[in-house]
């Protein structure tokens, strides 16, 4: 990454961090975020490093831990926060909520609450690009838990056989809910599974945004130039428990494990690196303040947005309405 990209990486990581802190605050205070909220704090480098390697018109598909992906892809924050609050101004008109953020305007094709299901959808987006004659690539985010489900296998095989420009990014945070990856997968690493599809598989330090960028950038380059798919496993950690469902903490994790990963906070690590590289403290503070300001504005926007009206229940279901059929009935 060049300096400009460095600062953009920091900005996007901070947007995610502040956005999620604000969301947790609203949840805690009961101010209007309902349902399951999965926080990705701790994983920002894996997410942002990946998205920064993409073009604006490239595609991403994500999963239930969904806030970071569209933010990292460049989505405006207001409609995302309004979505979490179920407002009509939400990016999905309040239909999707926290697990289903999507902003097609920035190539974010949506997040799914079904583990693994987004993987083949990303393959389809890359296939679509080829048929339409563009060189867009598609990136699928998924968790370590998804590596044991059928769609992972089928999606990777399809991308490989069809030679598509897909980057599979596993945010391996070591756990699926309470279950340690080591207990559910005998393979040495998720990246090692790439060999079963004759595609490159790489493990990267998911707390190091530049390392993630480099790995994904190479994969994107490969994909865009017709070299086929790549599997990137970013080793990372989430700092909150699975979801914000009250009195959840990380007490069931080994304390030294938690300590180790907290000491490798991706935002702190990167800020320290930039300082060491000679970036001025002021500049970093300005980036931080702008991110925080965007989040404050997004929260304000969401809170003042109206609830959807009852008739909106029936909107957005059909592209062409059901009663389009003429009344006359004859063969």
């Amino acid at each position: 990454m060049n300096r400009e990209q460095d600062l953009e990486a920091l900005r996007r990581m901070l947007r995610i961090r502040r956005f999620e802190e604000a969301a947790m605050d609203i949840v805690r205070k009961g101010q209007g975020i309902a349902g399951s909220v999965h926080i990705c704090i701790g994983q920002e480098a894996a997410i942002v490093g990946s998205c920064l390697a993409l073009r604006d018109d490239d595609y991403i598909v994500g999963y239930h831990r969904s806030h970071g992906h569209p933010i990292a892809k460049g989505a405006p924050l207001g409609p995302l926060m309004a979505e979490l609050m179920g407002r009509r101004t939400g990016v999905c008109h309040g239909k999707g909520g926290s697990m289903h953020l999507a902003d097609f305007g920035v190539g974010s094709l949506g997040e799914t609450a079904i583990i693994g299901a987004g993987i083949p959808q990303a393959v389809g987006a890359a296939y679509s690009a080829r048929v339409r004659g563009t060189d867009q690539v598609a990136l699928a985010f998924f968790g370590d838990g998804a590596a044991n489900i059928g769609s992972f296998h089928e999606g990777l095989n399809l991308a490989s056989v069809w030679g598509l420009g897909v980057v599979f990014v596993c945010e391996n945070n070591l756990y699926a809910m309470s279950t340690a990856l080591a207990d559910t997968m005998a393979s040495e690493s998720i990246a090692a599974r790439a060999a079963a599809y004759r595609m490159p598989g790489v493990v990267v330090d998911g707390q190091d945004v530049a390392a993630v960028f480099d790995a994904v950038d190479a994969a994107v380059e490969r994909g865009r130039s017709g070299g086929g798919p790549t599997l990137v496993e970013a080793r990372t950690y989430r700092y909150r428990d699975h979801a914000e469902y009250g009195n959840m903490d990380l007490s069931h994790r080994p304390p030294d494990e938690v300590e180790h990963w907290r000491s490798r906070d991706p935002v702190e690590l990167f800020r320290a690196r930039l300082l060491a590289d000679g970036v001025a403290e002021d500049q970093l503070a300005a980036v931080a303040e702008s991110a925080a300001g965007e989040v404050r504005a997004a929260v304000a926007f969401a809170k003042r947005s109206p609830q959807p009206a009852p008739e909106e229940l029936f909107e957005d279901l059909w592209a062409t309405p059901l009663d389009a059929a003429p009344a006359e009935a004859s063969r």
Partner: protein
Amino acid sequence: MRTMSYREALREAMLEEMRRDPAVVVFCEDGRFWTMPTNGFVDEFGPDRVPVMPISEEGFTGAAIGAAMTGLRPIVDYTIANLMYVAWDQIVNHAAKNRYLFGGQASVPIVFRAAMKYANATAAQHSDRPYPQLMNVPGLKIVVPTTPADALGLLKSAIRDDDPVVFFEPLRLWGVKGEVPDGDHLVPLGKAAIAREGRDVTVVAIGDAVPAALKAAAELARQGVELEVIDPRTLVPLDKGAILASVDKTGRLVIADPAHKTCGAAAEIAAIVAEDGFSSLRAPIARVVAPDVHPPFSPALERLMYPTPERIAAAATALVGSPKELAVP
């Protein structure tokens, strides 16, 4: 007018639409094989639009969804309706829901083709008629054509529709020939056909129960009982108006459907009429459907499963009282 088989109509519809619109692609295992209606398509449209397909129903259905959300119009051919179950999550949780979940940001224009191999001695895992299950899922349009003209016209409409359409084909009808209008023949979704007019009993028939109902009607006509046979053609959206209007005329309703009874399409049609056409009804509603047991392999048993002209005639006759002796072959 042209004459073609149902199977040729399927091929013709796909050919015409693929020529018309470069966004149309076909996903089908062995789709290039000589037994398939898409045989030869790869030569005309190239391997990108007719890609080789691993046995990965879940995967390629997901891929179709990703493609549909980004500008293509995939036709996904499961070849056997039961294989949809392998991809059920992608069909039900994603294809049917994504437009709604994402607030209308993208549509999912896919046609899911599913041949139903029942009455073909392929046993329970290859003989299902799963449209009732999918009728319970909002967001999917559901079509069951019964003539070559409707197969052609509805498949073309389905391919052009911006919503996911599930297209069920009774394999028994694939070989049936019929007249098909020339030119760009489109049949709109959501519009029933009155396959035969009659004043005494309405028979709403689905799939290959339509030809069975027409046979029953021809037989009963000789005895002075006139059946009105309605082929909904599209199950979602269902042309309720056509059904209610007919029951309003006849006062009696038989529903003939090769799918299972419980929570079937026939149950829905009965419920609609019991709700909105109650005052027209002069007799109980009768369902002539498959019993709630799996299709057995043995042809000696499987032929007891589905609506026949005899069963339909008997049900209709019971509703009007008992006229002269029946002699349906």
